[in-house]
């Protein structure tokens, strides 16, 4: 299982890395921003009728909040999975002793 999982993780990393290496001139902007442009191209008179409640001061601050989200999620995920796997080992070793 471990070997297979490591291969899957390596594949995932590869899938993210290949575009950056291959497409040297791409901007890698967000797909939602492109959709925004497409809406404006289709419907130039469309005026968004509601503004986001907050405006993040810069791309740095935005990536801060995004990484915070990832960190919180990964922390909780690791904690729960860690307890789960450790708990199972404990039960197994107790069963062996008993």
């Amino acid at each position: 299982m471990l070997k297979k999982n490591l291969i899957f993780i390596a594949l995932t990393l590869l899938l993210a890395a290949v575009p950056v290496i291959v497409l040297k001139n791409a901007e890698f902007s967000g797909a939602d921003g492109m959709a925004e442009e497409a809406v404006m191209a289709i419907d130039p008179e469309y005026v968004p009728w509601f503004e986001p409640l907050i405006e993040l001061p810069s791309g740095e601050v935005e990536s801060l909040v995004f990484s915070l989200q990832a960190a919180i999620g990964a922390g909780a995920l690791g904690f729960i999975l860690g307890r789960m796997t450790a708990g199972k080992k404990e039960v197994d070793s107790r069963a062996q002793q008993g």
Partner: protein
Amino acid sequence: MYTKIAKTAIALSSAAALILLAAAPAGAMHIMEGFLPPLWALIWGFISLPFLVAGYFSIKRQVEVSQKFLVLIAMCGAFAFVMSSLKIPSLTGTCSHPTGVGLGAILFGPSAMAIIGVIVLLFQAFFLAHGGLTTLGANTFAMGIAGPLVSFLVYQLMKRLKVKSSTAVFLAVFSGNMMTYIVTATQLALAHPSDGDVMTSLFKFLGIFALTQIPLAISEGLVTVVVFSVLEKYNGEALKALKVIA
């Protein structure tokens, strides 16, 4: 069965997970704030509403069956939280992020994911100006309802066909992820037809979202298979109790 320390730890972890859920940001590449006209904003909001109500009761029921499920639900929320925060470069030269809701849909059914989806979306709308409040209904439908529903159905079908669980999980997550973006493109096209032609717009938006999404759907599928295999190994009883595996 549990020691006091274990109970405290589980309670703490659940609390942490719940806080995280409440704080859960990012979802898919959602429709931007204000980019659906008021009528469409309302329509999608009303369509999503019954699923959210069903989701609330679905989670409540499963937690009543076993508190262990609460930890698992929280874990699925945490997973969606991480996955949706990762904007990953794609072969189209743009970035998008996975949804992370496929895992929970396989484990707890599609309606439970409506709740996790909406929490993630609310967080992103509030703290990241990503997605939005006026597009919350539409985004919830795409990411929290349509995607998980497809993941759930594909998984159930694969299970019935006795396909290996890792293959089933991969295909379920892949199709759910693609579905989310197909629905997003459809929602945009319906609201913004090109000179009255919805199809032209649909292909335009599909071109933006779906192509970008294919490598990401593969990535999400692979990562979900990894997490699922760990669950299968260490918490097989819970998966059996949820009738996810035989």
